[in-house]
């Protein structure tokens, strides 16, 4: 069992967490002015890195989103960090 660390609740088993995507994948501003490919990029296209990854995760039990740095090969995971205002 892998243990991830929620910045608010501390270390918890992996099944309490939900993967939320690449860190910094912000919704494009401008609605109708946004070209289709840009919407698709935001909605569907992923970095999917082999090795070091910067990701958003959700701790399902407290409902908070946070950021985590993780190695997708060794599965080593640094403790989660609270998302800060204006963070990339």
């Amino acid at each position, binding site marked *: 069992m*892998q243990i991830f660390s929620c910045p608010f609740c501390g270390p918890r088993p992996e099944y309490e967490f939900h*993967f939320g995507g690449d860190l910094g994948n912000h919704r494009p501003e401008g609605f109708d002015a946004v070209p289709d490919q840009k*919407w698709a*990029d935001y909605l569907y*296209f992923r*970095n*999917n*890195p082999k090795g070091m990854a910067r990701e958003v995760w959700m701790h399902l039990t407290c409902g908070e989103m946070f950021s985590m740095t993780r190695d*997708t*090969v060794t599965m080593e995971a640094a403790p989660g960090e609270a998302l800060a205002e204006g963070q990339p």
Partner: protein
Amino acid sequence: MTRHYSALSLVKEGLKGQKGWAPAWTSPQPKPRYDMVIVGGGGHGLATAYYLAKTHGITNVAVIEKGWLGGGNTGRNTTVVRSNYFFPESVRLYDMALKLYEGLSRELNYNIMLSQRGMISLAHTPAEMEMAARVVNAMQINGTDAELFGPGDVKRVLPVYNFGPKARYPALGGVWQGRSGTARHDAVAWGYARAASALGVDILQQCEVQEFLIEGGRCRGVKTSRGEIRADRVGLAVAGHSSQMAAKAGFRLPVTSYALQACVSEPVKPILDTVVLSPGAGTYASQSDKGEMVVGGGLDRIPSYGQRGNLPVLETVISGLVEMFPSFRQLKLMRQWAGIVDVAPDSSPIIGESPLPGLFLNCGWGTGGFKAIPAGGTLLAHLLATGQHHDISRPFDLDRFARGRLIDEAAGSGIAH
């Protein structure tokens, strides 16, 4: 040298001490230039090379594999073949594959051990029964065989199932496809490799593609651990490593790589002669020719390139299995493993030219691309040879994401595999 496999050649070689068999495929030195290069020596890559040579007469082709043939997901999967999908586009694709599988042993002169033993996707609640009826209707309208099973039918095909009054997963019925079954995974890879090699294709193992040669905005070949290889067109069939290769070509893909695991038990006497899937329990199983129970389930929900698999999913899979088949509790597990699968948001594959002209994609098969190998090979070969989509691959182009034309099989048929 004996090349053709038959009962007669077996007897002849047996009398000569089995010394005269030609190698199944040759291992030549890489040439500096080919017409076409295929990256990835799994089933899809090898089938692509075979159909390029067989259907299109293009034999100056290399398949480049970083490890050994079938060492990726093709040699790690649970070998279920079927075409019980929901959308017409998918049924055309997977039925093309199943039809080709039905004639493949003969076509390749290689026994792929196709066993069309039928598959039951179980429904445990009235709501699941209604969904099952919907899928059966869709499949029949799309022209593939499907039958709605009731409790009596399940009893007939799965006598060892837990039909007790306290069963956690009562079997109300389900979707039956009689043409579904299993095939031997290694044999599919080796059969295509042997047939492609006989037609002149170079199979290069232990050769890793590290970069793409990009000139004038086009892909002109690949840089490998064994030197540069130029080609007019390059096909990419690297499953879980598609994003990594795409990054080298300068674009991103709508796929995420996850570990999908499976396990086998010790061999026992024949007890299960169909493929059984319970989407509700998150488990599927079949019995191999050797007698092992081959068991799998859903994805590990943590993006990963570590070919291991985690404990919570294994626990779900095994607990589902022993709930449905209490007698399997005594089985001992022999092996557990995982493969890295490339999952698209709509659980459908991606086939088409990539954003880098000259580089063509065959990926996104996720948890279910073994059953599709003959079709994936046919369609990528068609693209490479003609530069145009085959009618069947057109809906699966990468452009479906920007156009919003997703083929959402995860929602449509609730596919697991």
